[in-house]
């Protein structure tokens, strides 16, 4: 059984379709040049514009389609088409504009379309790269499981630290209290905490075992290994959150800008037909 992803779906069916569309659009653009030069209001311009508008609507419909679980067909096919035809759309729209740009609603719509498509590219990139890395990072563990284990490690470390000198106790307590995992969108996207107290604690603990009593040394070794384990758990949890946020982050541009595009496009069409 041959497995396909969204790009090689049905042997690049939609890629081929997109290429054909672009070629036809180009051919039309070359062959039918209006006397006054290319612009959106020419015969070819209206044609390309109508096709583009319909395609934009169809692209937006994907948001509905992927949640219509009762409908027929596969979402995978829709996404594949969404990607390739969406990319083709930029070319067709550019041809539709006849390369006339300015500070107006028409160019705004064009700009919004580009933002939507480019954010989509980021989405593709994320979909290609992160799933594999997520699996490598998490294995069979779940985020909840990791957080639980971190909490346990915290409890254990602090119990042992109570039996240690104050400086060690302070470091461990600080590490347990001040470490945060994925607080704020920026930290989620970055996947690390600057000057992470957990990393610092591990670093400092390495050098702090020298002046301890024999009894405490044993505890120190135990504490150290707990802190190291805890540190790697924290890292993995942050990584996982990072992948998750990166997988979803581009949608915060893609969807609002798509809605803005729909509004701007409506305004553009109304402007063209009523106020030309």
């Amino acid at each position, binding site marked *: *059984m041959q497995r396909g992803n969204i*790009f090689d*779906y049905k042997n690049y069916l939609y890629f081929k379709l997109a290429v054909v569309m672009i070629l036809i659009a180009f051919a039309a653009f070359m062959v039918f040049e209006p006397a006054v030069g290319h612009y959106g209001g020419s015969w070819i311009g209206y044609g390309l514009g109508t096709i583009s508008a319909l395609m934009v609507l169809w692209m937006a419909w994907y948001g509905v389609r992927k*949640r219509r679980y009762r409908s027929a067909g596969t*979402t995978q096919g829709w996404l594949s088409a969404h990607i390739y035809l969406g*990319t083709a759309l930029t070319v067709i729209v550019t041809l539709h504009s006849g390369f006339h740009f300015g500070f107006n609603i028409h160019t705004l719509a064009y700009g919004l379309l580009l933002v939507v498509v480019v954010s989509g590219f980021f989405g593709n990139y994320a979909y290609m790269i992160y799933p594999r890395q997520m699996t490598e990072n998490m294995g069979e563990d779940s985020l909840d499981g990791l957080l639980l284990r971190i909490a346990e490690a915290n409890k254990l470390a602090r119990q042992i630290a109570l039996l240690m000198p104050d400086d060690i106790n302070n470091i461990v307590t600080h590490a347990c209290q001040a470490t945060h995992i994925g607080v704020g969108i920026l930290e989620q996207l970055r996947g690390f905490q600057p000057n992470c107290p957990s990393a610092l604690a591990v670093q400092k603990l390495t050098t702090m075992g020298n002046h301890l009593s024999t009894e405490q040394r044993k505890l120190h070794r135990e504490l150290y290994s707990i802190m190291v384990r805890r540190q790697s758990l924290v890292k993995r949890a942050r990584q996982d959150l990072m992948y*998750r946020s990166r997988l979803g982050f581009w949608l915060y541009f893609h969807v609002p800008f798509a809605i803005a595009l729909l509004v701007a496009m409506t305004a553009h069409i109304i402007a063209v037909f009523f106020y030309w």
Partner: protein
Amino acid sequence: MTKVITPKHFNTIIIGAGPSGLSAAARASERGISYLLLEAEQAPASTIRSYQRGKHVMAEPRGLPLRSPLPFAAALRETVLTNWEKSIADYKINVRYGAKVFGLHRTEKCHEIELLDGEILTADNVILAIGVQGNLRKLDIPGADVPQVQYQLDDPMAFQNETIVVVGGGDSGVENALALTGRNRIIILNRAEDFSNCKDSNLLQLTEARKKGALDWLLQTKPKLIEQNAKGEFPITIFAETPEGIERIPCHRVIARLGALPSRPLLESFGISFPTDDLSALPTLSTHYESSIPGLYIIGALAGYPLIKQGINQGYEVIEYILGNPVEPADTAMLREKFASFCSDRGVDDVLEKIQKNVPLLAMLNRLQLRELVLESNILLPKPGEVIFKRNDYSTTFYSVVEGELDIWIDNDDTIDDVVKAGEFFGEMALVSGRRRAGTVRARTNCVLIETPRRVMQKLINSVQSMRTILNEVAIKSVVQICIGVSLSSDELNDLAKHATLKSFAAGEDLFHEGDEADGLYLIQSGSVTVSRMIGGKEVVLFYVAAGNYVGEMSLVSGEPRYATVRAAIATEAVLIDAGRMRDIIARNPEIRGALDARFLQHLQEQERRQQLGTASESAGALGSQATPSNLISFLIQQGVGEATDVLLIDESLCIRCNHCEQACADTHGGATRLDRDAGPIYANIRVPTSCRHCEHPHCMKDCPPDAIHRAPHGEVYIDDSCIGCGNCQQNCPYDVIQMAVVHEQPEPSLWQMLLGIRPKPDIEEGGAKVAVKCDMCKDITGGPVCVRACPVGAALRVNPEELLSYAGSSTGEPRLLDSDES
């Protein structure tokens, strides 16, 4: 309450105050015979009492009329129990609680019943109605009779801030212990050195709970003694023998979950005989429920009738029989209905007699068994040309031909391979293999068929030795025909079947080992096997072979020792044809020789290819040496995929964790998703999520009281609306894919909600009954499983084990990833 002075002798003694026993007592009371009802517990109906609070008790089978004075209708557990208690008072039922029967034997004149307290009672008739659940194994240590020792946990919420010792490391003990954690201090005493008998999910929760300090356990530990404490916080102290010595544990309560005693040894100790050696065989009974001991009757679950209503009716009937009144069994009306389309002019008994006269196989059953078989079966009247089932259909029923003739096609060509006539039967392969139908059956003339569910046949086969022998022989013959695929003369077939041996292998057991002397040809009747070789010091799986094929032909053809190791992937049954006999047959049938040779060469070729693949991906080193296809197959087999007919896999290198698979499932299936994408083992980026595999022999079907779990023609295992929410299937499923949930209508979201991904609030009924839900492979949805179709990136896929090998093969090395999508 006035004390009843009981005479020592009764006309009838009824043992067990469950529904059947109560019904018999109520009828005996109405008829005014002298009787006594004995109940070991302190209250009636202990099995139903042990159901969880507020459970809905169903009254199946729906069509069966209730004819006993004891009332019963589908209702809450509490209502059912209250009604029965009222009946006990109304009929002034002569019941003695706490009366444990110690021995039962027949003297010349009557039965003697010895109670645990030493008292002896006598009776002309004894009715055994003790069910199969009530036989809980008890703690056999001094002091175990204190009230703080219990063998059941009805309501875990009833205990707070107690120290509770749970004895028993099986699933029920662990589940009880887990239910009590959080509010109580729990210590589990486990006789074994680990909890390997537990389901994985329980084990996981248990380890988790111990890590959190919610409970603790002692392994290799046996309770020795329980003492009551006169004062202090803890009412009792349990002394346990650990490997380190005796441990003293003061506690509030001991819950012992030691499993149930099988009922057969108990019945045998009373002298009751059984038709076969099988442990699950039912006792030999006459049509009047009389066992092999005159005057000793068995009714209810112990007699093989697990439903409450059946038991209640039998309680009534058995009293009438004892009084010498041959009442028509309650199911006669239902039988009459069954026969409405066939021989409607004759009486039910007449028709049953005709069936037994026409079909020798069914003549081996007694009348009681035949009635049950017919009741559970469908009577089919196909017209000439009508297809009964098609090759590759998934159906597991067995057909007996009462009248008419049918044609069988085994292979794809147009020639008829076999004909079945009146008195014969077909579909018997479904009883063993659990796989698709091997041939197509079509009626040649007008026929009368009895279509019997596999479950019913299995129950009868376990009890009727002669039927089992015949079906085994036939099964061997058909497996020879199907596996080897050439038609032998009937003499040759008979000869083969007579000398072939049926062998069973547990999962992981070797059929034979690389380097062994060839002992013969193995035809896989049910289950599946892996073929592996030692290559470079490591065991490499070469193939996966499913039922309906054979293994072991390579050495047979070459005459050399075994070339590979063949191991059962799941519980497997194989027919072994001895090497010498096989060579004789090959010598006489050049056709077979050709078939074996062709397969031998094909295997060699395949092996070469596989070995190269294995070494190639090893030297590439991209995914490490473990991710060879052979290892992926081993991994999937370990996850139980070998017994699956269709399994959901998730390619984690594509999965974007959007959860549309789960949401799509929930949306189209009453709000409860039947898969858990996030849970399940991963190997080489393939996850086996918690989701139904539609096993060949579904574990969930084993013990479903209303028989609500079925297999659809295309293989989907599903639960129908008659589910009573008992949870048996949930417990029986080794893969934890069944859950109990309230199913409700899921409203379709509006366009706007869909665009923004808002899920509408379902209108959930308050206090709706929980039923078992599981994946039905979207059998009622056109277009196939929604989980796969809703996946935007194509990460979810469904495979069957035959496809598995090719999938595992194709995913070697780096799956193709495009550098840029917009190329």
